Structure formats: C-alpha cells, structure tokens
C-alpha cells in the first residue's frame, strides 16, 4: 500500500547531522498524524533516522534505497 506524504523534505547532498536537524525542524510545523517524506544521500542517515525516531518517538514508517544511491524515509508525526 502506497503511503501518501503530506510534506516533502529534500536532504540530498547533505551530510551528518543535517538530515536529522532538518527533519526535526520540518516535523515541528506539521500536524499530529501527518507524514513526512525525507530524501537523503547520506548512507549514515539510515541508522541515524532509526535512532532519531527511537529518541523522539515519532514513527519511522519506512526506510528504503532508490535510484542506486538515494534513501527515502517516511516518518509519521505522533505527538
């Protein structure tokens, strides 16, 4: 089932820690229950986004690789 994102955040080309910093800022302005789509090229973003979701208790719905070297994350704002 395809999940539709409510907001898109481009972190392509950005290195640690900017993907988590920008994700935090983006999610701050969203409604509870809304879904953020974040796209990054930093391979460290995979473990970092998992850790970020664990710590902030927002829900990491999916983390996938696409186009060879890009990563797509879907995050649901839970609180």
């Amino acid at each position, binding site marked *: 089932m395809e999940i539709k994102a409510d907001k898109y955040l481009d972190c392509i080309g950005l290195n640690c820690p900017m993907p988590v910093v920008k994700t935090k800022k983006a999610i701050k302005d969203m409604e509870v229950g809304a879904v953020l789509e974040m796209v990054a090229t930093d391979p460290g973003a995979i473990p970092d986004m998992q850790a970020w979701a664990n710590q*902030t208790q927002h829900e990491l719905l999916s983390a996938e690789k696409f186009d060879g070297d890009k990563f797509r994350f879907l995050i649901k704002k839970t609180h």
Partner: protein
Amino acid sequence: MNQNNASHPRRLALIASRGTLDWAYPPFILASAAAAMDWQVAVFFTFYGLPLLKKDLSAAVTPAGNPAMPMRLPFGPEGLQKIDWSANLPNLILNNVPGIDSMATSLMKKKFKQKGVASLDELREACVDLEVRMIGCQMTMDVFGFSKDEFIDECEIGGAATFLEFAADADVSLFV
C-alpha cells in the same frame, strides 16, 4: 528502544575547549543532533573553545598541530585528488611551508563543502534554532580579554558551577 519520556528528557552536557576548525565540529554536530532528538543540550565554551561564540567565526586548522591529518586536494584530476600530501611529505618540511595553515584551512573547508558537511556557521545556527544553551566561560573571557558584545546574542556567560549544575542531571557528558 524508547528512552525518552516527558518527565525527564535526555540531557547532553558538552565542554568545548578547542577552537580550531577541525575540533570545533564535534561539539556543534553533537549538540545539534541531540537537540534534534528532543534532548536538552548545554555546551560550555572554555579556553580555546570560547572564540567559537564570536559573531565572526574564523576557525582555522594547522597541520603542525595535527601530524596525522590527511591533506587531499578537493579539485583537479582524480589521481591527484587521491594523493595524501601529508603522508608523502615529512611534517618538518610541510609545517614550514609559508602559508600552510591558511592553505590547509581552505582545503578542509572546500573538502567539507564538497562532501555536504555543513559549515560551522550553519551548525551553530542550527544549535541556536534548536535552543541549545551555549555558555561562555567568564574566566576565559577575563584571561584572554573578550567582552560579551563580541559574542552572539544567544549565548550566556557563566562559570564552572553554571555548567556543572546543568551537567549534574545529564545522561551524557563529554569533554571535547
């Protein structure tokens, strides 16, 4: 593993004691990443770390102080970019090349930018946005002759006790 809870958010207490371009990164990276994870963060800028609070951030790096620092060109043919100049030239020679510090600083900035690493200004701005407490050391100000108006407005001035009071309840404390 969910560790955060509303009654006690996690806390990070950092001491930033070094002000060169390379050593300025860890405190700003850790502080912004932790704040992005909803942690409470305070950084105590002391000794050579204090100038990192200056409005005009001008951190530089010196190969002489970092003999193992790799130095690769961020431009030119690929073969040339792969050469680690610091590994191929004796430190005694490298460190005595006039202008080597400004060259190393410029190379490091170019390389970081090329690799998508944020600048120190950007990271410090992220810390400000995410409400990281930045505490400048009063004693260092007195010793090295700094005044509060040289520093960014968002910082506060305090001493060891100010920092320790925050650090007493920290989950992670690091000295950089």
